[in-house]
């Protein structure tokens, strides 16, 4: 389940491209570049020879070794972020041909099968750019803190054995646990708006990633002890109510996480939480 689902649209087309990819061709990378926070951005294009199985990261490595644009102008190497190179860390997420996805798993054959075909790379637009294709995803980790996405086990006494878990429930939670904080869902969400400064994060839409993680820990036998606090955050400013049900998030999530189900489940918890709070809360 999960990762096996091709959640990014256009899978058919990509498969067809792979079948007709020309060997030994060169493709053009058009890259949106920026030298640092607050600096202006510009486009630069690079010609990169392909090898069988080459992907966006391997092509970026080629550019880093030969930072010369198609017009023969010497430039600085293009900067990007990456970690695992196998689509499990989320660090290499960027916008490729207008759609967000991981670049390490993005095969050139699928996107540019013919000589001279162009691939456009842009940094994610919802996060502050550090440099070129490298963005700062701190807001996502801050969101995880805000919804207390953990199981409270620290204490002064032995908590005893963990809770029992049945198979189906475990399967449901497993799917949610696959989130790699990559940011695809936030990039595609029309309700999630870029905020450069940390003090704006609290009042802006928290986004589907944290909502789904809150559900993961609300569903945990011990983690649910923090459910009320999570629901306070999620019914506060920038909470679940800001979702506009565009359902883009679920379609771009590379892990096939059922984000819209999480949103509805948290919506249900929010309904119950707010009614309970109205009658019994402070």
């Amino acid at each position, binding site marked *: 389940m999960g990762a096996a689902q091709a959640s990014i*649209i256009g899978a058919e087309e990509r498969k067809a491209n792979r079948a007709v990819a020309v060997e030994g061709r060169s493709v053009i990378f058009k890259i949106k570049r920026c030298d640092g926070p607050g600096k202006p951005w510009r486009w630069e294009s690079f010609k990169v020879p392909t090898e069988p199985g080459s992907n966006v990261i391997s092509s970026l490595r080629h550019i880093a070794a030969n930072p010369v644009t198609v017009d023969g102008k010497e430039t600085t190497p293009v900067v990007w972020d990456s970690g695992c190179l196998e689509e499990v860390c989320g660090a290499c997420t960027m916008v490729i041909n*207008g*759609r967000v996805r991981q670049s390490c798993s993005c095969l050139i054959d699928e996107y540019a099968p013919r000589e001279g075909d162009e691939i456009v790379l842009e940094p994610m637009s919802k996060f502050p750019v550090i440099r070129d294709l490298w963005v700062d995803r701190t807001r996502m980790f801050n969101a995880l803190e805000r919804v207390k996405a953990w199981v409270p086990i620290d204490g002064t006494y032995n908590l005893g054995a963990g809770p029992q878990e049945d198979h189906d429930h475990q399967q449901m939670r497993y799917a949610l646990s696959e989130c790699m904080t990559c940011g695809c869902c936030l990039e*595609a969400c*029309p*309700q999630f*708006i870029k905020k450069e400064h940390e003090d704006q994060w609290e*009042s802006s839409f928290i986004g589907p990633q944290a909502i789904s993680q809150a559900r993961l820990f609300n569903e945990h036998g011990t983690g649910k002890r923090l459910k009320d606090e999570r629901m306070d955050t999620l*019914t*506060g*400013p*920038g*909470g*679940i*109510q*800001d*979702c*506009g*049900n*565009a*359902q*883009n998030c679920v*379609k*771009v999530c590379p892990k096939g996480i*059922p984000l*819209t*189900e999480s*949103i*509805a*489940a*948290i*919506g*249900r*918890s*929010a*309904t*119950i939480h*707010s009614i309970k709070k109205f009658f019994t809360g402070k």
Partner: protein
Amino acid sequence: MSTHQSFMQRHQFLIRRLHSLTGILPIGVFLIAHLVTNSSLAWGWFALKGRGGAEGLSVSEGGVQYFAHEVTYLNTQVPHLFLIEVTLWAAIAFHSILGFYYAMGGQGNLPHYKHQDNFRYTLQRLSGYFGIAFIFYHVATLRWGWSFLVPNGTEWSHHWSASTLAAALQGSSEGWTAMGVVVSLFYFLGVSLLVFHFANGLWTAAITWGLTVSEHAQKRWGYVCAAVGVGLMLASWGALAGAMTVDYDEAQAIEASIQGSHEVPAEQLDVHTQNDGHTLQTAEADPEG
């Protein structure tokens, strides 16, 4: 930060849920009732026939007869009508002002993410903008009597419900004019978009409130909402088609006979006569067809 803003922020959740609720109750419920009544212009004859009261009437005349009867009933027999109307207008104002404010906060990205759901999201906002413009025109001209906005200045009156509606849509009491085509097209777009807005809102409300959680449940509820949408769409088109095919003079004759036969006490009718004196006089001055 102004106190106004922090009030909105502190109660963001509640206000958004109220926004969701008002879309269904009272607005959605009213929409259903309104379209059922108005579409009787299209199906009224069949209802009359069922009761054996359609003899000698064409389908259009039967529709007018039924519709005019309904409208007279609603306008004369429903208690606290004004209170109901004001509540409805307040709900619509609340829903649309907030909706506008929320929609402004989003960043549509349909060109990049061409999914059906993203299209729905975008259309929900566009239909909201268009819909409120239409509702305003519709209510202002046909309810508040801003007849200067109607081509040839027809004033709607519940005594002459079908005929004056037809004149407003067709552009004149003598039949179609170019402006009438424009107004009718505006109506067609307005009602169609609003029906979509309601059906889609009904679907997303179930997610918002957490009624439909699983993907399958969302899909099942989607079929229900689609059926509601198709039904209301047919009702709204039926109402429009009915109003567009009404013959002004024929309708006036039927409406005059209803006023004569209606069980409204004479004094009460007089009060209305004074209110809508203009329309009534015009009708009286009319040679009887």
